[in-house]
């Protein structure tokens, strides 16, 4: 079975600084997709970034980028120039075309400090 592990339950970062959230996963599949979702206090889940495993290039989305290490099964999220609006729970997630599930990690609560 696939599992997704987020080892940092809580993190904080000063406004304008950079922070990295870690995520590791376990799978025997070769083709799959990884996601980072953000859940602010409003509760709305929003996609931050999506990575296809067969693509070597790390996905980026404005201030958000990932460090995807397929061999190590690691998918960390880097947030540059942190803003107060980045305060949220961040969930790493895994899915594949062959599986019947969509797995979320346990989440990392990020607080951006003014």
């Amino acid at each position, binding site marked *: 079975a696939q599992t997704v592990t987020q080892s940092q339950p809580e993190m904080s970062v000063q406004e304008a600084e950079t922070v990295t959230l870690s995520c590791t996963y376990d799978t025997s599949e070769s083709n799959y997709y990884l996601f980072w979702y953000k859940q602010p206090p409003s509760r709305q889940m929003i996609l931050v970034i999506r990575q296809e495993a067969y693509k070597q290039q790390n996905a980026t989305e404005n201030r958000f980028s990932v460090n995807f290490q397929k061999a190590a099964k690691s998918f960390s999220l880097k947030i540059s120039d942190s803003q107060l609006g980045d305060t949220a729970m961040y969930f790493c997630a895994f899915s594949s075309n062959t*599986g019947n599930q969509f797995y979320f990690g346990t*989440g990392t609560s990020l607080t951006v400090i003014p």
Partner: protein
Amino acid sequence: DTAVSQTPKYLVTQMGNDKSIKCEQNLGHDTMYWYKQDSKKFLKIMFSYNNKELIINETVPNRFSPKSPDKAHLNLHINSLELGDSAVYFCASSQASRTDTQYFGPGTRLTVL
């Protein structure tokens, strides 16, 4: 326009009751989902459904059943509610499969007394 909407946003009910949560998406997506988020924020998929198949997470009690009158709607029916059903329930949709980006509704906070 809201892409994925859920009603109600809050639901408080007694143990043993039957309740429904409605979900609608206006994105033209083929696949819809229901998730449960517990008090520790842990998210677990309950169902995924498109016009071809319903996939049920085997850990979901059969008191929970999805009902889809059409492609844009996936409602969640819960029979004989229990205290442990208290959680936030999210509906989501994606273009085709689980590997596509999912768009989430605002969630329904269910409290069972």
